[in-house]
């Protein structure tokens, strides 16, 4: 187990090194951020001075070495735009994105799986057909569009309607936050929750749909297995049959998907964050790419890659907990 984890972490380190090099060179090739940052009225001399101050006059390999040195020091260099350590700027944004991602994953799981079980147990009921049709929509609607529609419905239409305005929800931003252990969290305030609902639903919708379909397929398959028939024949209550025997056996694919999904939700919350003006990492990434703020882009990607690696590791460990037949380390008996 330990050897497995160490090997995975080493692989991850390699991935991070390669990725940082690629991103570094890629952004270097796009252009020089100074031309976007500096006032158009600045003279050539002033431009040269700024380029020198930001270290952009060095050859590429030297710039990379400087960057590696700073990365090892933990700061990843100073942001070209903000003039503050890049990692600090990225980490400031983590709580907002983490809240959004975790809550949307929570929604995807705790709404998606029960609906999927229902649809799997009663495949021919009208409600099940409705759920399945809904899940297809959830899959296929692009999430920026869903976001805009939700804003129109809850933020504009309901707010302006005479009788239903109590149902309206704020359309943007993060709402009131409370500082807890040095991070700003909005999940402790009602206002924060009201702000969180729409973006989390938007972000979680397609995974919710995925979970519904996965669970339904799993349930339908497992229900036909002998051990379920046997459990029923034994006279076990239906709740136990489904809650233990069925659920446990359909969990593997759901855990895999949820692990991957949490990673992608964090990495690709970009669109949702932009539509809802959610102050998370995704919005920072877009702004930083536009202004070619290389230190911030690299720091962001390193954070996300690191996160994905950890999540995958957790998923692998969870497998062995859920299903004892799976052993870590690839050594089979």
């Amino acid at each position, binding site marked *: 187990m330990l050897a497995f984890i160490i090997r995975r972490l080493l692989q991850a380190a390699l991935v991070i090194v390669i990725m940082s090099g690629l991103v570094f060179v890629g952004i270097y090739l*796009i*252009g*020089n*951020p*100074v*031309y*976007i*940052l*500096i*006032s*158009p*009225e*600045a*003279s*050539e*001399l*002033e431009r040269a*001075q*700024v380029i020198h*101050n*930001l270290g952009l006059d060095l050859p590429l390999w030297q710039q990379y070495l400087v960057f590696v040195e700073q990365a090892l020091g933990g700061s990843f260099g*100073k942001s*070209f*735009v*903000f*003039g*503050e350590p890049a990692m600090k*700027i990225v980490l*400031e*944004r983590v709580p*907002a994105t983490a809240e959004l991602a975790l809550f949307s994953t929570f929604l995807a799981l705790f709404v998606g799986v029960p609906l999927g079980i229902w649809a799997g147990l009663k495949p021919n009921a009208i409600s099940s057909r409705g759920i399945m049709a809904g899940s297809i929509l959830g899959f296929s609607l692009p999430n920026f569009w869903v976001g*805009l529609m939700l*804003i*129109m419905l809850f*933020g*504009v239409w309901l*707010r*302006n309607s005479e009788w239903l305005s109590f149902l309206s929800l*704020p*359309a*943007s*931003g*993060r709402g009131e*936050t409370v500082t807890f252990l040095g991070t*700003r969290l909005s999940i402790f305030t009602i206002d924060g929750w009201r702000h969180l609902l729409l973006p989390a639903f938007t972000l979680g919708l397609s995974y919710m749909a995925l979970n519904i379909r996965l669970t339904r397929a799993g349930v339908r398959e497992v229900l036909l297995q002998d051990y379920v028939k046997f459990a029923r024949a034994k006279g076990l209550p239906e709740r136990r049959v489904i809650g233990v025997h069925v659920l446990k056996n359909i969990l593997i694919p759901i855990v895999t998907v949820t692990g991957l999904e949490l990673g992608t939700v964090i990495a690709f919350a970009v669109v949702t964050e*932009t*539509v*809802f*003006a959610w*102050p*998370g990492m995704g*919005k*920072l990434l*877009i*702004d930083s790419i*536009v202004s*070619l703020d290389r230190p911030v882009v690299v720091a962001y990607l390193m954070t996300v890659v690191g996160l994905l690696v950890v999540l995958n590791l957790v998923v692998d460990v969870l497998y062995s907990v859920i299903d004892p037949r799976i052993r870590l380390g690839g050594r089979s008996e």
Partner: protein
Amino acid sequence: MMIRKLAAIAALATGLMVGLAAAVGAQELKIGLKTEPSSLDPFYHNLGPNLQMSAHMFDQLVAQDDNQKLIPALALSWKPISDTEWEFKLRKGVKFSDGSDFTADDVVFSVDRVAKVPNSPSPFTLYTKAIKEIKIVDPYTIIMVTAFPHPLLPNDLGSIYIMSKKAASGSAPEGKTTEQLNKGDGLVGTGPYKFVEWVRGDHLTLEANPNWWRGKAKWKKVTFRTFTDNGARVAAILSGDVDVIESPPTADLPKLRENPKVSVSQGLSNRVIYIALDSFAEPSVGIPDTSGKNPLKDKRVRQALSMAIDREAIVKRIMQNLGVAAGDLLPQPMFGSRADAKVQKYDPAAAKKLLADAGYPNGFTITLGTPNDRYINDSDVAQAVAAMWTRIGVKTNVDSIKSTVFFKNRDEYKYSAYLAGWGAGTGEMSSPLRSLVATQNKDKGMGVTNRGRYSNKAMDAKLEDALRTVDDKKREALLQDASRLVINDYGILPLHYEVTPWATKKGLTYKPRVDQNTLAENVVAGGK
């Protein structure tokens, strides 16, 4: 019975209170910005969003009004006492938001600090480099000595916000560092508002400065939030999440105008959209079929290209009237603009004839470069110009690309013709002239953005003369002459001045500014 009565009274009282709150005029103003400032340090990044935020918390010696006319702020008056010496009389009785007095020491401290801020991506030294020394005559009189005659000193000081020496001093060479100021530490000014809180990416809160020397600020509390996405910004004003948004997208304007809950305010800006032509390279990169010649060096060809553009149609159809056709580089009545600058008449027949006279009866092929995310409908305007040029026989391809790449290409002379814009930071004519059309000269800082490499010796002489002339009247006449020389030589083709829109909640109006800044003090109650 009693209880019911009490409840009724309570309900009435609550109703009254709600009514009162509305009557006092929403005490809190929420503004939706397009771009967040990169820092709150007033000398870190010379960039529109930062300058407009500084304007809320600080004052300059010499301010610029809504039309960028110079007006007294912390300096009551200023006058040149020789070619290189300016005397400023400072306003007495001005207090910083922390209650301390404003004196000459604060001016010296602030101007000194400008050059000391490290890692600035766009330094403010641009505005202070002419200042050689500041002599304090008494706490309310200073003399600024410039290294050379510099008539634009008062204009330049419009970008230098005065910080409190007491609050912003610190152990670093620059006093309080940019990082500290971003947290509000040392962020003390004399402006209408003072800092409360900034959560980067989320919101920035200010409250009225009780010590403001001009009187009472219009709003008790101002919250800024940033919506980079156009759709999100529009949704924010429609849903009432914010009271004002800047730059609502043109496509949504008709809808916003019809909406009974929203009003749209708009005003002319100092930004001219122009086309620059390569008048240097031979052959020119974007013109493949003239056997190595650069037709744009011929004035007749440049004139033909200008005559072929129907500016009124562009303003009306593509800009949705968010523009005014331009015949100069700066609109009237700004300093150095001319009453006689007429918009080029649209005349494709005459343009064709000029082309034939110049030896191109069948026209030629050219590529027109344009950014597609920088100016209002930039790429659409370029497409329209291309169609109009093609109509007179100049087959035009449009190379439309993100501004990050566009500016790089432009600076590497990869365009024979390009569309771009220029906002006159100083609010007067020397700004566009020296950057866009003056002959390139690194040492003098001339022609920095003149990437068509246009050169006109007569114009250069007039402009250099103007930049040495401290007398306002004489200088204005020289600038007018200079701009006339360029425009009549078709050295650059102005298209239109941008009109800046703002959308506000019904019952509020935005008093537009030519520098396109969004200021809480310009949001006023009333209006249609």
